[in-house]
């Protein structure tokens, strides 16, 4: 079943809109914790948005507000241009697939039963139901897990089963909260492959994560949230291009012993954060500079890996981890 087949979407430029959303929590007599302080963000139709932020920045709270698990104290959330009330409105039925960080499929069901339950709740019957379950099982690659109880699945397997459930009826909006948190490297890679395969013109995906590498490899847009506000919202491509442009001249480090030679060559440099090295300020194409150095038998001691979202993220959040 395609996203279009699930129903005609309301005409709106954005799939999700948060408008000045506020949410505060209390614990006993302690001071309230403001999880969201006027969160405003538009998620364009068809975008894969990575919502990045340190622990406690408000990612999960924002998603809980979107799903009406929490009711914002102020502000509004819109889905395809429609404001949300106390419950998700009936017209979005079958249009949202959700994989939350701390919510698994019912632990007492087998994966097969859980998927069929999801299909039935979403209105599928008989042959259509079986066909749809076969499709999501193949897509999420959970064939081997079908007869196992959810309670005995490993974290990675439970995530894959959860994603399969989220994909039932091929919803045009997918919400994934920390989808690959706690997975080992190979499971993460496999999971990210799966998420990448879900990109489509009509499907919007919102991924909350603090794993920058995952967001970088899967998302078309990046939103950085800090202290309950959006600090940056940009396409991943533009963000990285900008970051690389700014940071390209800082990539090459050479032994400080060759400083005098560098000066004679007219290559500017500055102290490196690595002991015994200096960092070159690159003012010409990188390969030309390396060629000139090679001619003088200067071999770079360290060429930094290309700029990633990490540097942008750290710059935006000031390295805040909590």
């Amino acid at each position, binding site marked *: 079943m395609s996203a279009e087949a699930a129903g005609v979407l309301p005409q709106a430029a954005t799939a999700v809109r948060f408008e000045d959303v506020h949410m505060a*929590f*209390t614990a006993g007599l302690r001071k309230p914790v403001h999880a969201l302080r006027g969160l405003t963000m538009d998620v364009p139709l068809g975008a894969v948005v990575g919502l990045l932020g340190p622990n406690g920045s408000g990612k999960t709270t924002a998603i*809980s507000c979107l*799903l009406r698990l929490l*009711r914002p104290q102020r502000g509004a959330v819109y889905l395809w241009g429609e404001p949300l009330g106390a419950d998700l409105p009936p017209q979005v039925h079958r249009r949202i697939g959700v994989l*939350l960080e701390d919510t*698994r499929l*019912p*632990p007492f069901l087998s994966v097969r039963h859980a998927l069929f339950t*999801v299909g039935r709740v979403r209105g599928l019957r008989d042959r259509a139901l079986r066909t749809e379950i076969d499709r999501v099982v193949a897509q999420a690659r959970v064939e081997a897990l079908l007869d196992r109880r959810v309670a005995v699945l490993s974290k990675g397997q439970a995530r894959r089963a959860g994603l399969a459930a989220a994909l039932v009826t091929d919803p045009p909006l997918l919400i994934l909260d920390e989808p690959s948190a706690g997975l080992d490297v190979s499971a993460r890679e496999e999971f990210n492959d799966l998420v990448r395969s879900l990109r489509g013109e009509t499907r919007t995906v919102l991924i909350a994560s603090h794993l920058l590498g995952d967001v970088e490899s899967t998302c078309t847009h990046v939103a950085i949230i800090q202290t309950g506000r959006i600090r940056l919202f940009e396409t991943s491509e533009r963000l990285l291009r900008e970051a690389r442009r700014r940071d390209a001249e800082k990539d090459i480090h050479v032994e400080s012993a060759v400083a005098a030679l560098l000066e004679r060559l007219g290559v500017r440099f500055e102290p490196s954060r690595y002991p015994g090295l200096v960092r070159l300020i690159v003012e010409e194409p990188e390969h030309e500079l390396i060629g000139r150095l090679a001619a003088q038998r200067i071999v770079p001691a360290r060429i930094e890996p290309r700029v990633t979202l990490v540097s942008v993220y750290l710059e935006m959040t000031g390295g805040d981890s909590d």
Partner: protein
Amino acid sequence: MRQYLTLVRLFWRHLVRRKSLWIVIGIVGVVLLVNTMVQSQMKEMLQEGVRYDIATRRAAAVLDSYADQIRQGAVMLVLVVGALIAPSSRKDGTTQFVLTLSVTRLRLAAAQFGALAIFVLLGTLVVHVGYAIAAHRLGILHPAEAMLAWVSFFALLLVIAAASFALSLTRPSVVVYAILAGVPYLLLPLLATFANDWSSPHVPAVLRLAAARTIENAGLLFPKIEALIVWPRLAWLTPERPPYPSWRLEALHELSAAALWVVIGLWAYRRHDFGSRIPTK
């Protein structure tokens, strides 16, 4: 409707898998069994050499005492089980999972209550059929009476289940037990005893009377459905069997008290946030 039935089935499976459910049922079963054994031994000793009609009458009396135990045990059991399903499904994420499938809160609660109603229905049916067969053999229960009695038994237990369940939609089981069982059966009787025996020269009599009245009236806010349950016998009104004079008022009061807690529970549920932290109001 199909979506609702799917959810009822989901929560039925959730309920019958609760270990706590079977522990509660086991405890009630053991208590009843011990009582039965003790009474049987006593009756056996007493009935040695007695006539058939006297033995039958004694057996009927024993059966009646069992019914009395079941009546009281059933109310407490249903109150306890009523508050199991919603808190445990919130805890293991089943509630949140169902809500993320675009199921409304009211439908979710209705499905959970549907599963609970099935449990009460099956439980009362098993108890009732077992009792009715024994009573019918002794000739002390008419089938029509038995049928009517079961319907009222089931309906009244469902009322107390509803009150317990509604409160448990937002509160842990222990809190529900404290409110619906702890306050009316423990706290208020204790306070009432204290207030009635309270004699102090420093406190005016009018104040002591006001305290006693307040405690007494506070008790009216809590349903005591067992007062209405006449299981295992209930007959249509006939001139030969006049009704208990104040049963209508009594019934209205108990049902209103149960409805009060249902309304409070649903009101809180409507405003409840399903997060791990408590939002500021």
